[in-house]
C-alpha cells in the first residue's frame, strides 16, 4: 500500500493520431516499467483491431513507478481511454477514476473535435489538466498558435504547456515531473469502510471476469468478502493485482490506488460499471453516484453468408458479449437472408469493430444489413413502439407520427473547407446551431438527424475536407419528421434487408442513388433485371440491369479440363457468398455498399 501523497492517477486526452499511445509507450519505457525487450508499439492496445486501426477501444491501465527529482518514488496510474465518440461512455467513467489529465495536442494540427469532447469530460470530472504539445520536432509545428488555440477554444491556461516529441523522446522526463508536481494527489481515508469504484470489467479466457477498481476509502485484501452495492451480489476476492501492464499480484490496495481483482464472476453482465464495491461485513454508508448505462443507438442485421454457420455465429456473439455488455443481439429472421441477429451498437465504429471481430476472430462471413437508428412510432391508439428494423414498420393506417433521434454535431474545420461542410450538413437535413472562428479554423455546431449520420457521414466529411475536419457528436433527443419506409425490389421481389427509413423529401434522390448503386453491385445475369425503389406500392426510382451478353472461354482443350474443373469448384465456393433472391444472386458486399452514397 502506498502513501496517498505519493500516488498520481491520470489519463491522457488526445485526438486520434496526435500521439496518445506513443506517449504512453514512452512513459512506460522511460520508467523501466516494461523491460526493453518486451516493448512493442501501442503497448496498451491489446486487440489486433486496436493496433491495426491505431485506436483504443477498451480502457486500459498501467501502474508506473517513478523516482522523482524530490527523491521520492511515486506510483503513477495511467488509465488509457478510447478517443472515439462511440466509446465516449468508456471515457467518462475512466475520467471519474483519476484526478488529472494530460491534454495531448499535435503541435502542427491543433485542437480537434474529438479533443474537445474528451477534454470537456475531463473538465466535468474536475481534473487538473496539463497541456502537452506533441510532435514539436516537426517542421510544421506551430506551438505558439496551438497554445493560443487551446486557450481560445478550450479555455484553459496553456502558458505552461509542455513541448515534447513522443516519437524522439524529447521532453518525456518533463512530462513525468509535471505529473508529480502539477497533478493533485488523490484523497481518501484508509480507516474508513471500503468504498471502491468499479471502473471497467472484461472477460479473460483464463481468469474469467476481471474487474478494474479504484479505491476511494478503506483497504481491500485478497480473500475479502465484498458486495456490489447496486446489484447486491457478493463475492470472495480470488486474485488481487496491479497492471504493469501485465498482472502483478499484490496483497492489498489502499485509498487512491487502482488495480484489478477476480472473484469467480461468470460474465461481464454481472458487473455494472460505476457500481460501488464495499466489504460485506463493514459496508460504507453511501454508494457512489454511478454512471448512466450506455444504450445502443445504431442497429443492423448480421446474417451468416452460409446459413450453416448460424450456430457458430450465435456462439461467437455470446462470447463477444461476455466482454462487451454495450452490444446487444436478438435473433431475427429475414425472408431473404434466413436466420441471423438484430444487433445494437454504440455507433458505427462500434458496429464495424464488432463485425470485424466476428469475421476475423471467429472466421464467419457475414452479411450486414442497412444500419438503422431507433425510431419512435407513435400509434393512433396512443402507444409508442421503438422501431429497430425498418422491416417491422407497422401498417401506416395505425401510425399517428414518427419521431427520429437527433444529434448535436460539433465540427472543426479549416476555413477553406467550411463551405463544403455546411453544404454536407444542409444536405443531411442539418440545422445550424452555431458557427464561430478560432484562428484559421471554424467551429460549426449542427443539429442533425442521426440516421443521416450513421452510415457514411464521417467518410463524406473526411473526403470533402481532405481529412482536415474533425467531428464529434452527442445524442440530442427525438423529433417528429416526415419519415417513410422505402423498399427495394430486385427483379420485382422485395429485398427486406435493403429496406430503410428515409425522409420523404429525400426519398426520391435516395431511391435513385440506391438503384444506381445496386446496378453496379449486382453482377449481370443472363436476363435483364429491373431494380426499383418504392414507398408503399408506389415506385419512385427504377434502373434496369441489362442482361449478360458474353461470358465464354475461348480455348478449352485436353489440358484445360482440370483447370476448368478447379474454376468450377471456386465458383461453387463463390456462390456461397451470394444470396439468392428469386432468380437473382446478390453478392454479400452489395448489402452494405449499396448504402454508401457518393454525395
Amino acid at each position: 500500500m502506498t502513501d496517498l501523497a505519493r500516488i498520481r492517477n491520470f489519463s491522457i486526452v488526445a485526438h486520434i493520431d496526435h500521439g496518445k499511445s506513443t506517449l504512453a509507450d514512452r512513459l512506460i519505457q522511460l520508467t523501466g516499467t516494461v523491460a526493453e525487450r518486451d516493448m512493442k508499439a501501442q503497448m496498451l492496445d491489446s486487440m489486433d483491431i486496436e493496433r491495426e486501426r491505431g485506436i483504443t477501444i477498451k480502457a486500459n491501465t498501467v501502474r508506473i513507478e517513478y523516482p522523482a527529482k524530490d527523491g521520492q518514488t511515486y506510483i503513477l496510474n495511467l488509465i488509457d481511454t478510447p478517443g472515439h465518440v462511440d466509446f465516449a461512455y468508456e471515457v467518462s467513467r475512466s475520467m471519474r477514476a483519476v484526478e488529472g489529465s494530460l491534454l495531448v495536442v499535435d503541435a502542427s494540427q491543433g485542437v480537434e473535435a474529438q479533443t474537445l469532447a474528451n477534454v470537456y469530460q475531463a473538465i466535468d470530472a474536475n481534473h487538473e489538466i496539463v497541456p502537452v504539445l506533441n510532435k514539436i520536432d516537426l517542421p510544421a509545428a506551430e506551438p505558439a498558435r496551438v497554445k493560443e488555440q487551446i486557450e481560445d477554444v478550450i479555455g484553459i491556461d496553456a502558458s505552461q504547456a509542455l513541448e515534447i516529441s513522443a516519437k524522439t523522446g524529447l521532453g518525456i522526463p518533463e512530462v513525468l515531473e509535471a505529473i508529480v508536481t502539477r497533478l493533485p494527489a488523490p484523497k481518501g481515508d484508509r480507516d474508513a469502510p471500503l468504498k471502491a469504484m468499479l471502473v471497467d470489467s472484461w472477460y479473460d479466457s483464463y481468469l474469467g471476469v476481471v474487474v478494474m477498481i479504484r479505491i476511494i476509502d478503506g483497504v481491500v485484501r485478497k480473500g475479502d468478502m465484498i458486495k456490489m452495492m447496486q446489484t447486491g451480489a457478493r463475492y470472495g476476492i480470488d486474485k488481487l493485482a496491479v497492471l504493469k501492464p501485465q498482472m502483478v499480484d499484490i496483497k492489498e490496495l489502499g485509498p487512491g490506488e487502482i488495480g484489478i481483482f477476480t472473484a469467480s464472476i461468470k460474465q461481464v453482465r454481472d458487473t455494472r460499471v460505476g457500481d460501488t464495491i464495499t466489504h460485506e461485513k463493514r459496508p460504507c454508508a453511501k454508494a457512489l453516484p454511478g454512471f448512466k448505462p450506455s444504450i445502443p443507438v445504431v442497429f443492423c442485421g448480421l446474417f451468416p453468408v452460409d446459413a450453416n454457420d448460424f450456430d457458430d455465429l450465435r456462439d461467437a456473439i455470446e462470447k463477444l458479449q461476455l466482454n462487451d455488455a454495450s452490444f446487444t443481439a436478438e435473433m431475427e429472421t429475414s425472408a431473404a437472408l434466413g436466420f441471423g441477429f438484430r444487433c445494437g451498437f454504440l455507433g458505427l465504429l462500434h458496429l464495424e469493430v464488432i463485425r470485424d471481430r466476428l469475421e476475423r476472430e471467429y472466421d464467419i462471413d457475414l452479411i450486414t444489413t442497412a444500419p438503422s437508428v431507433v425510431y419512435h412510432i407513435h400509434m393512433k391508439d396512443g402507444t409508442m413502439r421503438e422501431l429497430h428494423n425498418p422491416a417491422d414498420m407497422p401498417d401506416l393506417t395505425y401510425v399517428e407520427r414518427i419521431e427520429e433521434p437527433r444529434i448535436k454535431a460539433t465540427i472543426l474545420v479549416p476555413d477553406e473547407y467550411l463551405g463544403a461542410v455546411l453544404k454536407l450538413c444542409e444536405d443531411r437535413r442539418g440545422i445550424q446551431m452555431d458557427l464561430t472562428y478560432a484562428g484559421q479554423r471554424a467551429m460549426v455546431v449542427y443539429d442533425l438527424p442521426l440516421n443521416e449520420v450513421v452510415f457514411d457521414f464521417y467518410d463524406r466529411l473526411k473526403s470533402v475536407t481532405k481529412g482536415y475536419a474533425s467531428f464529434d457528436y452527442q445524442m440530442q433527443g427525438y423529433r417528429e419528421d416526415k419519415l417513410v419506409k422505402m423498399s427495394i425490389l430486385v427483379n420485382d421481389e422485395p429485398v427486406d434487408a435493403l429496406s430503410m427509413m428515409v425522409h420523404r423529401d429525400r426519398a426520391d434522390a435516395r431511391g435513385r442513388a440506391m438503384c444506381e448503386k445496386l446496378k453496379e453491385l449486382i453482377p449481370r445475369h443472363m436476363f435483364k433485371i429491373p431494380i426499383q425503389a418504392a414507398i408503399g406500392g408506389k415506385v419512385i426510382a427504377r434502373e434496369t440491369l441489362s442482361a449478360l451478353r458474353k461470358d465464354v472461354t475461348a480455348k478449352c482443350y485436353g489440358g484445360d479440363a482440370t483447370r476448368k474443373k478447379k474454376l468450377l469448384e471456386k465458383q461453387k465456393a463463390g456462390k456461397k457468398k451470394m444470396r439468392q433472391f428469386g432468380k437473382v444472386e446478390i453478392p454479400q458486399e452489395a448489402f452494405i455498399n449499396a448504402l454508401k452514397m457518393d454525395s
Partner: protein
Amino acid sequence: MDERPGFGLYVHWPFCQSKCPYCDFNSHVSASVDHVAWREALASEIRRSAAETGSRVIDTIFFGGGTPSLMPPETVGAVIEAARSSWTASNDMEITLEANPTSVEAGRFQAYADAGVNRVSVGVQSLVEDDLRALGRLHSVEEARAAVATAQQIFPRVSFDLIYARQNQTLESWRNELAQALSMSSGHLSLYQLTIEPSTAFGDRFSKGSLRGLPDEDLGADMFDLTQDMTEAAGLPAYETSNHASLGHEARHNLIYWRSGEWVGVGPGAHGRLSLPEGRTATETHLAPLKWLAAVRDEGSGESLRIQLSPEDVREEAVLMGLRLGEGVSLDGLKNVKAINELTELGLIEVASDRVRLTRKGKPLLNAILRQLLT
C-alpha cells in the same frame, strides 16, 4: 460425325522462338535443345503409356506446343513410328501438327508430310500486319498467306487460327478480315476471342491498366455473333465454341477431349485421361522441360500426378467439355432440373432426343450457363 469418342495421343513440344504476350501455354524459349535426348524420351513415354493401354486402337496424334513446327521432322517421324508400333493404328489415323507460318517452318512441311503428318493447324492469328506485331508474332501477313497455301498443296487437311477481339479492332475490320480468312480456308478454322490470362505479358499490362483498346463486352458479343453468321453462311458453322468446319472436317483429335474420350499425354506438362479398370484416371507430367526430361531418363516416367476421378468429377467434366460442342451432351449428366428448366425458358439451351445443347443465344454465355447448371 462419328460419335465414338476415340483414343488419341497428345505430344507436347514446349519450345518456341519467342514467347507471345497473350500465351499462357507451357512454352519456353531455349537456346539449344538436345534433339536426340528429346526424341528418345518422347518414344520412351509412349512405350510406358502403351503398357497400360496397349489393346486400344489409336485414332489420332496431335503435336501441340509450344511450337511443334520447330521439331526436327525425324523426331516427328520417330514419335509416329513409336505410336504405330505401340498401339493398333486405325485405318484413317488423323495426325495433326501445329505450325507457325514463317517461311523457314513452311519449308519443313513436306518433310512432316513424309513423316506421316496429314493435317496441319497454322497459327496465322491475324491478317493485319500491325496486329501481328502487337500479338508478338514473328511472321508477316504475306508469309502467313504463303504458308497456308503451301500447306494446302502438301496436306490433305489444313486449318488455321485467328485471334479476334483484339486491341482497337472494330466490328467492320473484323468482318473484312474474317471474309478474307473464309476465302483462304479449306474446311476448318479456329477463331478465338483474345483472352487476357494472368501471368502473361498482356496479363501484367492489363492489371497495370496499360493494355488499352480492348473491346467491351457488347462489342465482343457483336463480334462473336458476326463470326457465327459469317461462318454459317460460308458453310463452316461452329461445331465447337471457337472451332468451325465444313461437315467431315472437324478436328477428330480435339473431339476426343470434348466428348470425354481417352487420350495419352506425353511431353512436359501434358495431361491425359484414361478409362482404366480402376476407374477414369487423370494424369499429368512434369511441367518444366528439363525436369520432365530428367525424370523420363532417370526414373523411366515423366508422370507427376495421377488421380482417380470420382463419378461426380467425371460427370461434371463431361458437361464442362461437352456443352462446348454443337452436338451438346447427354441429358444423363445433368442433374439440376430447375436450372435446365430456367435456362430453357430463357431460350439459352434446348433439350431434344435426350441431349442438351446451347442455342445460338446461349453460345456466348457458355460459362454463365455452366455455372448455373453445375454450381
